[in-house]
């Protein structure tokens, strides 16, 4: 198992894709962090409430861990998807299964290797938002807010959430082996269908259902106490998210063990 894990990590680092995705994640995290720091405390007008100012823990959390998560998770998802679909796209799955005919072990090693890479993405992302967001807060005349309530716990949970999204990607990739189709479908669901569904269901007072959707489970994991929606408990959010990933990957394992490789 250790040797397969090392092989999977070498696979990730031996092509340039992970660099590209990492740079994208870092850039988006930085932009999101600066934006959140800039709009904090502003009055959007039109009768809406004033946004929490940078003196509140809520705003500080949005500048650091929340910004990192929203800038990174989609890249982590794509990393996971390509980690699986790339094997079929370039038919490297043949040599992978020749090295290890125990296919389920291969998928488990892949999940672990990508989760580790997801953690690396998230930790580097946190460093970037601490610099970008912190600078913006300082320019606006606030402190860095590093003693804000639940800040460090939320950072840890955000790292966990990013790691789980890479696992989700592996799960999607094992089910949908076409790389383009898997990415398009995953992004459509995450960016379009899920938000629309959330909006529609919430409008129909069906919060009890909405909270189980993957993105809302992520939010629950990181933002306990925020009351825009009736989220799950933070730990339950994490469990639900992980369950999505593992159920998808589990289905993928069962399918790939039986599937012909030609």
């Amino acid at each position, binding site marked *: 198992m250790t040797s397969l894990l090392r092989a999977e990590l070498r*696979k990730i680092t031996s092509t340039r894709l992970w660099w590209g995705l990492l740079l994208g994640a870092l850039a988006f995290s930085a932009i999101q962090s600066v934006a959140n720091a800039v709009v904090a405390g502003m009055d959007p007008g039109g009768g809406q409430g004033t946004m929490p100012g940078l003196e509140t823990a809520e705003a500080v959390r949005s500048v650091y861990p929340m910004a990192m998560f929203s800038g990174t998770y989609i890249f982590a998802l794509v990393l996971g998807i390509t980690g699986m679909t790339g094997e079929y796209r370039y038919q490297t799955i043949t040599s992978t299964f020749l090295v290890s*005919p125990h296919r389920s072990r291969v998928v488990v090693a892949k999940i672990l290797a990508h989760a580790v890479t997801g953690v690396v993405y998230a930790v580097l992302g946190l460093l970037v938002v601490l610099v970008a967001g912190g600078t913006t807060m300082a320019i606006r005349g606030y402190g860095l807010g590093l003693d804000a309530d639940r800040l460090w716990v939320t950072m840890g949970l955000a790292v966990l959430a990013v790691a789980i999204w890479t696992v989700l990607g592996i799960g999607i990739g094992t089910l949908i082996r076409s790389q383009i189709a898997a990415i398009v479908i995953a992004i459509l669901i995450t960016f379009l269908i899920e938000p629309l569904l959330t909006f529609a269901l919430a409008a129909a007072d069906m919060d009890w259902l909405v909270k189980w959707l993957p993105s809302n489970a992520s939010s629950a994991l990181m933002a306990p106490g925020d009351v825009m929606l009736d989220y799950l408990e933070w730990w339950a959010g994490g469990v639900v998210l992980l369950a999505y990933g593992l159920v998808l990957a589990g289905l993928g394992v069962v399918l790939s063990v039986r599937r012909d490789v030609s």
Partner: protein
Amino acid sequence: MLREGRQVDVVGLTKMFGALKAVDDLTFSVRPGVVTGFLGPNGSGKTTTLRCLLGLLRPTAGTATIGGVPYSRLDDPIGTVGAALEASSFHPGRSARAHLEVMALGAGIDTARAPQMLAQVGLSEVADKRVGGFSLGMRQRLALASALLGDPEVLVLDEPANGLDPAGIAWLRQFLRALAAEGRTVLVSSHVLSEVQQTVDEVVVLSRGRLVRQGTLADLDSGPREVLVRTPEPEKLRDVLALRDLTVVGADDSGRLRVTGGSTQDVGHAAFEGGVELHELVAEPSRLERAFLELTEGDET
């Protein structure tokens, strides 16, 4: 050092793809210490058989084993069987060295073997270049390096000569003979007999998923040979030969007459006695290619 070697046994192997029977009740075995050619036209089931042997395809019926054990139950898969499959591709963005390192790490093999294998197949200079820029011949060499990585007792190579230039084919021939001489089991598939003719000792010939011949190359090459003769007086020669029970059965592409019923001496003597001028007189080099085509006739669509 002579290895103990492992025999490959395919017994009653059948593989269906939907309603299509790609391999049909195939039985043969491959001995250690010799190079065995796995021959048949494209689409005759060679690759399907090899993929069943390597546990990549699930046979519909029958078994394919290495030393009596199915691939998926080998303790040390790539240390026992080294495979280079026709479709086994590489990630275009990964270097040749990294490709081998990934395999080595997964199999618990020292990654220092990666550059050694690349040197063995003549790819040292491009070890750190991305495979996307490799020619077909270079990919074949890399596939061979992957197959050799685990220092296996059995080598399974699918169309390894594809894309190699004549120098490369000559190199491959030496290489495979040396591997077999060490006591390894070497199975090489090809749809072109002439590619492997000088390399293989034994042949397994496949046609439409069925075994049509297993034996030595010499078995396949049996039967009378024809004599090829060039003359400016074909009609006269035909009459002269007929007196001695030698028959002109046709002409080859370059206009030489094909004669059966005797040796070059017989034909030369008859022409001399009959006063017919000859410009060329040779025995047909080999019936092998024709025998192969006859065995597998009607396969190509």
